[in-house]
């Protein structure tokens, strides 16, 4: 048997989770805790048994609409029990789900939906017109209301097991693409299970645990929340989109929901500390805090550590293309002058190493690009040739010792804003769409969790646009975290001798003078 489930076997003393493919993880929760609560959303909750019935009904509705193994099904719903059931139903019929950001502007949602060529889009009536428009190829819809299936968890006959293998596509997550268009990362059942089995072994969740679900479903952090809960029959509490950006409400949520395992980007934790009183009123239920997606500033982590000395803290690392491939456990309080929190060592059965510019592997103390190989490495990008060999992360790391690494920065124009990946080319394309803009370039200014996007813009002769107008232009095309924070007006963008935009000069201009 391949080695990727070793971690799981070790932790459970031989008691294997019976997961051959991803939907088996939910089946495990159903088996362990049928009458326990599986998912909570504000005002309501559902047990494993009822969620299983709801999933079967939805799966049947998908089959009736012609969904076949190998198809894609777009899920464009607010974060909800229904969205969870829809994802599980798609897996159950052997198709792959594609979560579409419920907050993204319709133009972007349409771009994602038309790119993945789904056979069905599961959505709400008021979004249906967009999904069905001539631009999108979706001809069949499953609506969230008024259709038998949703909100009906009376017993339903099980669905025959679909003919899929571990190497079949399980889901596609769209991330910002360097070409100016979002790109779909294709994850197989094997990819997802390798990570989930590691996470379950490491976190040892119990049916009494309550996991937070802070990340939206189109963001890879959500995989841990859902499937680690399901693997153990624990409960996952969904944080609706509208709540996830307000510190005091998040702290209130943790306390009210008695969350035991919290997972989010460091920005969210910083918000909870700075505005929500997390440290002063530390919820006693927390036993594990996980963070990923961006470096956690040591100063902030020291405060968190001091307030929650008995809580286990793990820094997880990995691009969407590899899920979580390294981790570092924060033991004790990092020193006052400590450098960044390490991303640590390989996990999920993966192998990681750093390669220098000359192609040689980095020695201890040296830095290079981090490469990842192993069971979590994606199948490839949707619509492009299959990925082969190790994945080149584009992240520059320093090798700290034999096995551990620290993140130093990027080797390309990709930046992270609140843990979200932002390809500056996409931002530039959106700003440039404004009729007054002759050319635009985007840079990220500031550091750490205060990083912000600033666009340097040169306008057409005789015309101009306010910051608000440019924000509006971005909002029509991009997710919210990609909207520019400021604008710096220039008569022309700085160029290098060979005519390319001089990003270093631009960065200096925007850092020095800030936004216009």
């Amino acid at each position, binding site marked *: 048997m391949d080695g990727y489930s070793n971690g799981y076997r070790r932790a459970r003393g031989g008691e294997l989770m019976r997961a051959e493919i991803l939907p088996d993880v939910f089946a495990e929760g159903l088996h362990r805790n049928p009458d326990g609560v599986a998912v909570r959303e504000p005002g309501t909750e559902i047990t494993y048994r009822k969620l299983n019935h709801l999933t079967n009904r939805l799966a049947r509705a998908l089959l009736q609409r012609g969904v076949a193994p190998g198809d894609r099904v777009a899920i464009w719903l607010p974060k909800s029990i229904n969205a969870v059931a829809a994802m599980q139903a798609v897996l159950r019929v052997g198709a792959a789900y594609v979560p579409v950001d419920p907050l993204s502007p319709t133009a972007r949602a349409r771009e994602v939906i038309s790119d993945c060529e789904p056979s069905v889009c599961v959505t709400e009536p008021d979004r249906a017109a967009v999904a069905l428009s001539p631009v999108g190829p979706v001809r069949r819809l499953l609506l969230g209301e008024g259709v038998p299936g949703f909100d009906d968890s009376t017993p339903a006959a099980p669905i025959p097991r679909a003919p899929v293998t571990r190497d079949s596509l399980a889901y596609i997550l769209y991330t910002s693409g360097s070409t100016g268009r979002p790109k779909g990362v294709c994850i197989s059942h094997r990819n997802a299970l390798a990570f989930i089995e590691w996470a379950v072994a490491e976190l040892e969740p119990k049916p009494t645990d309550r996991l937070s679900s802070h990340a939206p479903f189109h963001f890879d952090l959500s995989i841990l929340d859902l499937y680690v809960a399901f693997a153990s029959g624990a409960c996952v509490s969904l944080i609706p989109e509208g709540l996830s950006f307000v510190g005091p*409400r998040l702290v209130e949520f943790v306390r009210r929901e008695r969350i035991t395992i919290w997972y989010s980007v460091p920005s969210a934790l910083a918000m909870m500390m700075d505005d929500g009183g997390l440290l002063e009123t530390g919820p006693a239920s927390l036993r594990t805090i996980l963070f990923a997606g961006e470096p956690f500033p040591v100063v902030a982590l020291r405060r968190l550590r001091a307030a929650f000395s008995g809580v286990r803290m793990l820094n997880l690392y990995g691009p969407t293309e590899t899920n979580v491939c390294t981790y570092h456990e924060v033991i004790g309080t990092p020193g006052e002058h400590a450098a960044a929190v390490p991303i640590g060592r390989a996990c999920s059965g993966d192998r990681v190493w750093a390669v220098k510019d000359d192609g040689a592997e980095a020695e201890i103390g040296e830095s290079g690009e981090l490469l990842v190989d192993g069971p979590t490495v994606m199948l490839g990008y949707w619509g492009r040739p299959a990925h082969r060999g190790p994945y080149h992360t584009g992240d520059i790391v320093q090798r700290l010792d034999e096995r551990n690494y620290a993140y130093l920065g990027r080797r390309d124009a990709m930046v992270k804003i609140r843990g979200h990946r932002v390809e500056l080319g996409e931002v530039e394309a959106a700003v440039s769409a404004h009729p007054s803009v002759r050319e635009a370039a985007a840079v990220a200014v500031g550091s750490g969790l205060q990083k912000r996007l600033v666009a340097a813009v040169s306008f057409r002769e005789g015309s101009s646009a306010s910051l608000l107008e440019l924000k*509006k232009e971005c909002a029509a095309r991009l997710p919210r975290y990609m909207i520019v924070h400021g604008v710096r007006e220039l008569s022309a963008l700085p160029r290098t001798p060979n005519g390319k935009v001089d990003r270093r000069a631009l960065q200096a201009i925007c850092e020095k003078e800030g936004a216009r």
Partner: protein
Amino acid sequence: MTVDQFIEPIRDYIVRHHLDGQADLDRHTPLLEWGVIDSFALTEVLAFVEDEFELAVPAAEMTPENLRDLESIGALLVRLEAG
């Protein structure tokens, strides 16, 4: 106070601190949807409201509906003031 009395100082504050002083913000401009205020800016705006009007917005009222635009923030503050 009326909705308008609440809106004007908040509008000035947002324009000065988050829109580079450009005054094209109206009472129906979607603040969150267009990225005029993000989670960090929201904290600052609510701190300003507390200083200016001595009104604290409880966490439970910090919903996307209540913070959608100046109009809805004004309406929320009128409601909070009335107790």
